[in-house]
């Protein structure tokens, strides 16, 4: 796995390490860019006074320092250095982007503050409201975990049953055809009415949203297993339980993971809607709350946190898939 990952990043790394083997001109440029952005934040007076200007400049200087150190020391710091060198060009771009953003909002007010918040004001949210944001992430993760777990387990079990048994397929197929494509959010009003708590309703909705794609993909995975695998296993003395657990399911796993990815995507959507409309906690609720107070910086901060959370979860699922399906070659990378 690690070899393939470095293969992919090799051309990008080449951009960062051209010239002297130790010294990286790209990283030196990145260090200069971040130092320049820090200077700009400190020196240029703001049109609207902003908090935490010094802290933001400090962070920019810290990034500049790291880039400069890696540019000079080369591969001395192992994997961290390799990562920084790989994204050298990105470091320059982000420094430039931050500078432009800073100028357009805090420095000149070309973009209307506070609808488009300045970098400082978002930093302020992280520094002053991290507790509430952290608790919101915790609530969101807990709700998502419950719903996704039940949905994935139900979908997988149902998919295997439908794919394996004609009787189950006969009864489940029409129901899945009718109910499956219905967006889980359409159940929202009914779910909040039926379930005793909005939390339970939300778990149900997220599970529902996850279960449908997992069911369909598991089913199609089981159905597309090479029949010869069964014949081989049967002549070798396999009983039906062995055929399901050791032949059908492993052969269907690539499909199952596609279903799990699709389910995770839809579960994010349902999670946010459920938190906005019913559950009084979590990142969806935080967004809603921030809008109520016209705290736009808080919304941007929450969106950023949410993006990081979803991206991390997808990455975790990819890692799990790569580990489980390491027997496959030519996998798609995340």
């Amino acid at each position, binding site marked *: 796995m690690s070899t393939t990952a470095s293969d992919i990043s090799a051309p990008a790394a080449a951009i960062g390490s051209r010239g002297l083997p130790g010294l990286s001109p790209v990283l030196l440029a990145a260090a200069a860019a971040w130092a320049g952005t820090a200077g700009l934040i400190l020196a240029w007076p703001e049109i609207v006074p902003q908090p935490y200007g010094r802290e933001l400049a400090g962070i920019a200087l810290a990034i500049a320092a790291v880039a400069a150190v890696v540019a000079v020391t080369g591969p001395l710091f192992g994997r961290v250095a390799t990562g920084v060198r790989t994204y050298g060009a990105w470091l320059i771009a982000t420094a430039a982007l931050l500078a432009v953003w800073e100028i357009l909002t805090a420095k000149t007010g070309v973009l209307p503050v506070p609808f488009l918040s300045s970098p400082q004001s978002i930093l302020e949210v992280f520094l002053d409201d991290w507790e509430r944001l952290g608790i919101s992430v915790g609530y969101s993760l807990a709700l998502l975990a419950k719903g996704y777990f039940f949905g994935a387990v139900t979908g997988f079990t149902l998919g295997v049953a439908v794919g394996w048994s004609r009787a189950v397929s006969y009864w489940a197929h029409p129901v899945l055809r009718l109910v499956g494509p219905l967006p889980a959010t359409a159940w929202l009003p009914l779910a909040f009415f039926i379930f005793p708590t909005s939390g339970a309703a939300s778990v149900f909705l997220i599970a529902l949203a996850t279960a449908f794609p997992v069911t369909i993909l598991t089913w199609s995975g089981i159905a597309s297993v090479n029949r010869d695998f069964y014949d081989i296993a049967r002549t070798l003395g396999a009983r039906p339980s062995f055929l399901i657990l050791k032949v059908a399911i492993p052969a269907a796993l690539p499909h199952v993971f596609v279903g799990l990815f699709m389910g995770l995507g839809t579960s994010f959507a349902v999670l946010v809607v459920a938190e906005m409309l019913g559950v009084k906690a979590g990142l969806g609720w935080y967004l809603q709350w921030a809008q109520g107070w016209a705290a736009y910086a808080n919304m941007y901060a929450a969106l950023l946190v949410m993006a990081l959370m979803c991206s991390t979860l997808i990455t975790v699922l990819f890692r799990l898939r790569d580990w489980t*399906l390491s027997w496959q070659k030519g996998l798609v990378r995340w």
Partner: protein
Amino acid sequence: MVSAAATLRTDPAPPPATGERIEIRDVSHAFQLKGAPLQVLDRVSFEVEPGAFVALLGPSGCGKSTLLRLLAGLDHPSAGEVRVGGATVGDPDPSRILVFQDPTLFPWRTVWDNVALGLEAQGVLKARRKRVDEALELVGLTGFDKAYPHQLSGGMAQRVALARALVNDPRLLLLDEPLGKLDSLTRLAMQTELVALWQRARLTALLVTHDVEEAIFLAERVIVFGPRPARIVADIRVDLPYPRHRGDPRLATLRQEALGHLGLAASW
């Protein structure tokens, strides 16, 4: 078999054959194809002695492979009786193993785990782990136990498939064109290995092939089938001791005879 004993130079007293007797009596079989029955076997009858190596030769799609599936217990004949070791064939059993043209290894299992499949399915893997290593050694794949099927060449994959069959100590080995998709050099090497494996294991081997040369070089007896629905058109005894020499003029004569039965003598 006298001819088999002659090749076992290191072991003057070969163990008795452990293979099963095969009896095929008036077997007919038809598939349902788009509602209409398609007759593939038409009252086929023959017997195979325990421990013999018999080749079934015939044109493609003549029903030879169907016969192997009936013997393995994967399908059941429309009419007639298929008996192995005196008993009518019921469900598939690890004593009768079918090796397909495609190795059909399980891609998510390592070579070792693929070979261990039968023992695992029968629930005896713990007690007989050594048999897996022995089978891998037998087919010359020691050291490849942790490789995955996609890392193997065609010949190696087919050897793993053979090891997967042999690890169960089958008494009847059903080979459905096992060398059909290999390149010609690998194929020649594997033919020799196949004979060696059969001689060592003393099992009954039934090889389906449409390669005349292969049938005559490998088997003690070649049963020639006509086009579908399959009937036996000839039963040729290959009265040559092992190891055989490919340039033996007797092989050429027998090949000519077999081709004649297939209506292809003119092309030679």
